[in-house]
């Protein structure tokens, strides 16, 4: 089989992460095979015959071979899993927010204090406010959650719990939130930028445990804001998230 120019490499030890290794190794095999078929002249092949011989169908077959081994992809955009449930791993809790809670192993958990507040996690404060922020926890993890509130209205005092640090999933309802707990990103993420612009209290990069839909939560937004320099120095600087004891 033909050798590729990049097959001789003094310093490269691997193709990169496992899924990259799987795809790129298979692609290189495809290129070698098609180069042979074309007669082996690289200069005639690379922007010439390769464009006819290395087709979308051939490349899709590379993916199909990986899925045939049982590999399932980790999802980022919810649409990916929704359209190809057989190709992606399921997303925990995405269909049943009523019983779901994030359970981050590094969430700080402490017993209830004199006011009945249990520490249930921590996050990076985007802007230091004058007071803490208290409201009702509600998860927003997919389009259906957002569409429901877009049609029915966002309930008062909603503290949105989001694992998307982007600014688009909750775009049409973000302004209505009383506060935001985001289990991802940093103060510089799009969601951090937008909540700062709107003046909505927000904790980014949150790690929480045992907070369910409907719980009363308190964000320590009167605490210090995290700065960009603190990230670069590796300083924690997070503030607390409490769950209030149920009144029942």
């Amino acid at each position, binding site marked *: 089989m033909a050798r590729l120019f990049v097959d001789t490499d003094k*310093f490269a030890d691997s193709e990169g992460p496992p899924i990259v290794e799987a795809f790129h190794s298979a692609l290189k095999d495809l290129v070698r095979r098609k180069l042979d078929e074309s007669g082996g002249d690289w200069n005639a092949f690379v922007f010439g015959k390769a464009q006819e011989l290395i087709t979308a169908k051939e490349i899709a077959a590379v993916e199909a071979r990986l899925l045939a081994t049982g590999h399932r992809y980790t999802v980022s955009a919810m649409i990916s899993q929704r359209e190809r449930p057989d190709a992606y791993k399921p997303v925990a809790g995405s269909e049943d927010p009523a019983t779901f809670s994030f359970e981050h192993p590094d969430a700080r958990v402490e017993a209830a204090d004199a006011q009945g507040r249990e520490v249930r996690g921590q996050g990076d404060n985007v802007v230091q406010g004058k007071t803490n922020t208290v409201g009702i926890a509600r998860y927003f993890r997919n389009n259906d959650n957002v569409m429901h509130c877009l049609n029915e209205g966002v309930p008062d005092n909603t503290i949105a719990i989001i694992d998307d640090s982007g600014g688009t*999933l909750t775009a049409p309802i973000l302004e209505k939130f009383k506060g935001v707990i985001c289990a991802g990103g940093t103060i510089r993420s799009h969601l951090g930028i937008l909540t700062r612009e709107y003046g909505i209290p927000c904790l980014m990069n949150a790690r929480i445990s045992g907070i369910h839909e409907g719980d009363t939560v308190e964000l320590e937004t009167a605490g210090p*804001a995290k700065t960009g320099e603190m990230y670069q120095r590796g300083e924690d600087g997070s503030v607390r998230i409490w769950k209030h004891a149920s009144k029942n």
Partner: protein
Amino acid sequence: MSKELSYAQLLETNNLLQNHGEETYWLCVTRTVQESKLFPVSAYILLSYLNAFYRWPTLLRKIEKHMPAERIADRVRNATTKIETIGTGWCLPNFYLLGREHLINMGMIRPQDAIEDVAYVLDFWKRYSLSWRRNEGHISAREANHRCQIYPERKLQVFHADQYPCEAGDALHTAAGKFMAATAQYGFLASCECRVSMTAHGPYKVADDCEMLVRNFYDLSQSDYPWLDGVADDVPYNCLTVTTSVKDTHFYLVDDWGSFEAKPDYKAENICGVGLYTSDPLTETHVPVGMGSREELTKTFEDLAEKMREANTKLWRRLATYSRDQLLDAGALVYYSIIKDIAHFAGCYEIDDWMMIDERAQRFRGLLNDEYSNEVLGAMLVPLTLPSSQVQEYFMMLHGNQSRRVYTPFQYALLGKGDYVGSVGGMGPGSSSLPKKVDRYRTTQGLISNAEYNRRVKAFTPQLASEKFRDLDETWVKYHYDTPLADEMYRIEQQYSRKLKGKGAGLRRADIEALRDRS
């Protein structure tokens, strides 16, 4: 047959490659990853890079048949357009080069393939950037230690003089803040989760304790993006510039990704002056929006914020019905078309050039699942774990000291050998899963067709971009400010200014400050 590059051209090309690679690494390592539950972001980014690699060389050559890069930049310096810090400062060279690097790592090309295209794209970027940044004398934000001071004195004087003072809690301050929040949010959605719809440049020193940051918002109305047809028709401006003066705050970083950082930390409550403008390829200079009075500006910010909210909600409802392929195409086209305004300024914009995915990029779609896309994009940018990034072990890269680099340089052993293919060739057929674009474009001259937009741009030469004025730079003004020609040039810039109209070239910053409204 390929045209042979000289030793000097290769040296310069490799220098530009290395500089872009180092800046890319720094930007990535000091910022967060871009995440979205709505859009397949990494997948669309990769598709856009591949599309840029296959199409941009042809499109930039086409543009330069109409107008050279450095003269386009002269016009752009006087307008609100995406082809400034974010679009051309970083995205133009790096989207293209990242597409190249991805293909090298897939074994699809050798490092020396498309060498003439690479040299040309980087040369285009160099000429454009040197021209756009000529007032500060840098080639890049990196070279300026991450500042971006683009404007000449004449424009800064107008922005400074016409700003309305404001303070936290007053109606104008509140309205301006809500406008920027609503527009930023809509911009993220319209641009499929990326931040290319907004940038900032500056800082510009308006007083010893006050700096001005110019914030720009782009592609807000019905224009190039098919997904905004029927959604953004009521947004009355496609591009808006908000001038903000911020007291007691020093902006020590204003980078090509629209990020700014300050000491002490930036707080909206420190904004103490605002102004609002629009412009496009059909305007002479920035045109004030709602700047007739403080009350009018407050109302304008409020009305525009409401328009943005309405468009935002309509757009979200539309995007919630899109398939993954449509979301992928929309995001890829936002990224790929980041430099489309170059074609608008040259009067040669075509939908098939800028709103389609080339079949050579399209064929990789089957690989672009979420996991592979996240992993390969990450590996290509920060850990630099792909094969092409590995170099000899004595080398210590800037910022990280690893024996790695972002972009593969060209070997000098190529000189005189000709063992490469110079160009990817012309554009292949393009396609898109998105609805057909409605032929209606929002400009400062109203809603017009693509052909009419091109025709009007070709027929229009802004006075300040004419041979008479375009090379009268800041150094010329320093030594000729008292001439009729300098007065004439300043008066063109001042034509819409409520404070400076007709005042000419003789004013200093203190004179401007004295002319400003006090409250």
